[in-house]
């Protein structure tokens, strides 16, 4: 079956069964491998994308459920101001070790700040609790998000 899906502002045709998760359409049908496979059951967050701006686990979203919603992925994250600021903060804090989960962390963090530009420390932890970092770079992920939130606040003051 052919699905017509908007990804990073572009309409893409995907010929695949409707129950195929968006993750595997991105990775194996479209060659967009920035979005990562971690667990396949929505428990780790490595596959996080935005669907109409909401952080969504693409391993658990069937193609047939995407419809006309807007999908955006890590490949387009740098095109948004918050995404770009987070990418820079990730580098400034030298957040990562292996880096495999970081696409999902960044997508989730961007959705958090888009919805809540001034999260408390607990709100950051709660919002990021669905994203596993096996290297446990949690302190730096937390700090990078808090830093962007602080900078945004300063910029808007």
């Amino acid at each position, binding site marked *: 079956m052919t699905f017509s899906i908007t990804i990073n502002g572009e309409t893409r045709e995907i010929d695949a069964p409707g129950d*195929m998760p968006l993750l595997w359409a991105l990775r*194996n049908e479209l060659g967009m491998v*920035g979005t990562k496979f*971690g667990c396949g*059951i929505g428990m780790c967050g490595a596959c996080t994308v935005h669907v109409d701006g909401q952080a969504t686990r693409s391993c658990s979203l069937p193609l047939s459920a995407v419809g006309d919603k807007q999908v955006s*992925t890590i490949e387009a*994250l740098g095109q948004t101001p918050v995404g770009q600021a987070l990418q820079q903060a*990730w580098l400034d804090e030298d957040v990562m070790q292996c880096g495999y989960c970081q696409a999902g962390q960044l997508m989730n963090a961007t959705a958090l700040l888009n919805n809540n530009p001034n999260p408390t420390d607990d709100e950051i932890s709660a919002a990021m609790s669905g994203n596993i970092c096996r*290297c446990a770079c949690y*302190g730096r992920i937390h700090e990078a998000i808090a830093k962007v939130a602080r900078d945004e606040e300063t910029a808007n003051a």
Partner: protein
Amino acid sequence: MPKQLELSRRLFLKSSAVAGGGFALAISVPFAASANAEAGAQELTAFVTIHPDNKVTIIGKNPEIGQGIKTMLPMLIAEELDADWDDVSIEQADTNAAKYGLQLAGGSFATPMNWMPMRQAGAAARAMLMGAAAQRWNVDVSALATEPGRVVQPGTNRSATFGELASDAVLQPVPDPASLTLKDQADFRIIGRAIGGIDSPKIVRGEPIFGVDTQLEGMVYAAYERSPVFGARLVSADLEAAKAQPGVIDAFIVEGNGNATELVDGIAVIADNWWLANKARSALAPVWDNGEWESHSTAGYAAAAQEYWAAGGGEVFAEKGDVDTGFAEAAQTFEAEYHYPFLAHVPMEPMNCTALYNDDGSIEMWAPSQTPQGGQGSVANYLGITPDKVTVHITRMGGGFGRRLNNDYMVQVAAIAKQMPGTPVQLIWSREDDVRSDFYRPAGWHRLRAGVDEAGKLTTWADHFVSFDLGGGQFNPATMPADEFPAKYVDNLRFEQHMMRTAVPMGALRAPTSNAMAFVMQSFLDEVAHATGKDLPTLMLELTDGVEAEPMTMGFIGPQPGFSAPRLQAVTRKVLEMSPWGEEMPEGHALGFGFYYSHMGYFAEVVEASLNAGNRPVVHNVWCAGDVGRQIINPFGALNQVNGAIIDGLGQAMQLAVEIEGGAAKQSNFHNYPLPRMPMTPDIHVEWVLSDNDPTGLGEPALPPVIPALTNALFALTGKRVRSLPIRPEMFA
């Protein structure tokens, strides 16, 4: 006198011109004779290229698993070359033992192994650039100096960039290693600077960089069905049913090669999308012959341990004095049973490998492996070809933790690719495959006894250790060192063991043996300390009081410093100073201490813990004092390793176990193998004790002591002793 690995007296350099006026230098440093010499790791090689535009390219030869080696090793070369770090770029090497020497990510070896040779390599290149400038300016080389990226003559305005000198430098004689002077620590410009990961900019943009991101023209995907019961053989499978599933290109049986570290029986399903290949596995209806192994279970092993303890008479592997007299004469004796479970590695990037088998019988592979040379050898053996016919590209890895020291997925994909010459195939494991087909941290059981004399001094120490016989020929992490602390510091000692047969695969998990022993030994010592009216750090300091550092010893990488009691004492004192040890804690909070020495690193840690309403431990703070020598090479990477190791250890202590039932792993994914998440992250306070020793590795040694520090804190809080991991909330109810 500083203790350090000897400066190599033999340095082999080969310089060559690069098109356009560049200068390439290959530097080989013979490895000091070591236990590993037979493994073919006799030398280390560095490749540096200086381009006419002043750019410096350094080959990163070791696999990158997140330990930061691809950034750190070039820092060592660039420092002594006096390069401008902004001009340095790093290229990942392919697998080539003849060219690069040992390429390994494991054992926290890379730092001690490369600290001297990589700096010598940089210094050699710098000497040749200076020689070229001396010749060009007709001055003595002693009149010259370097600034980042250039040679200068102080007191004049003469200055030339490395790029400008490169074409002349290539003609310079190879320097005599004895003439090379390495920089003083105080003059370091790159070493000691917090430098971000070299690949990080690509990663935040989602660029393809990991093994599983490999994409080749016409590539297909493979999933591999194997028995959940370890040691099973395949009887039959419904291949036609699998082939009838959507998207499936082929399905075929792969016969194991009798070596479970390489290839077990299974069925490969090939499709043009991995999800479709994996889904089609459900149609295979495989029939397995599980043999005797399906009766195996963790519970069975635990029961067997009890029987071995009751029967006694294990194989004695360490003995001194007379433990029987020691216990008979002791004023106080202690006895306790300790246990820890199997653990899985679960790196975030699931096991995968991509291969293209060619019609001429050669194979090209894209392998996320911590031991790509080992994988190359295994694949060559399996295919019956020479290793030079196996090209192995080293990809960045989404974590390793020891899982990728075994290369079973490489042999699997080679076996699959051989069935489809000319078609690139990417094998990917599901997370369930990963959790249920790991080489687990071995479970172990210890029956410990201790005796103290009238004065409260620990005199007698005994352990009956039960674990697994993994067969010869491989590193066995199911062992207990014969000198396990406090063996050296008691008068009477006996360590005995029983090793059980099993088909459960086991391997090294970050800080192998240490991640288990630290919990057992530091907990039991804490029991002794409490019962004799002192705390554990006091007991540790007493046991090692006045003991001098041991002489250099022969290790995996050649001569290395022996165990140093003064370094143990220094980190112990440091962490007590850093933490509120001995102070009144907030209501419901308590502190615990743990020390461990592993991978040449000394770590003392204090944990502040409480219990939540559900009796689950909550860790608020961890104080950590570490000694890995006189220099932290990259503070960014170093702190990340320590913080990660501490959280990793807390996860193991609090919530992780793989249980064997019916010969198979019961756990399967993150819902029942729950890794630490952000909300459980404590505040971690790290300080370095900079001792006058060459720097050593940081991937592992910070992990072991945090586990007993937590369980000892829970004892201080509740009076209940954790003797089995993971910690179960019920015990505090």
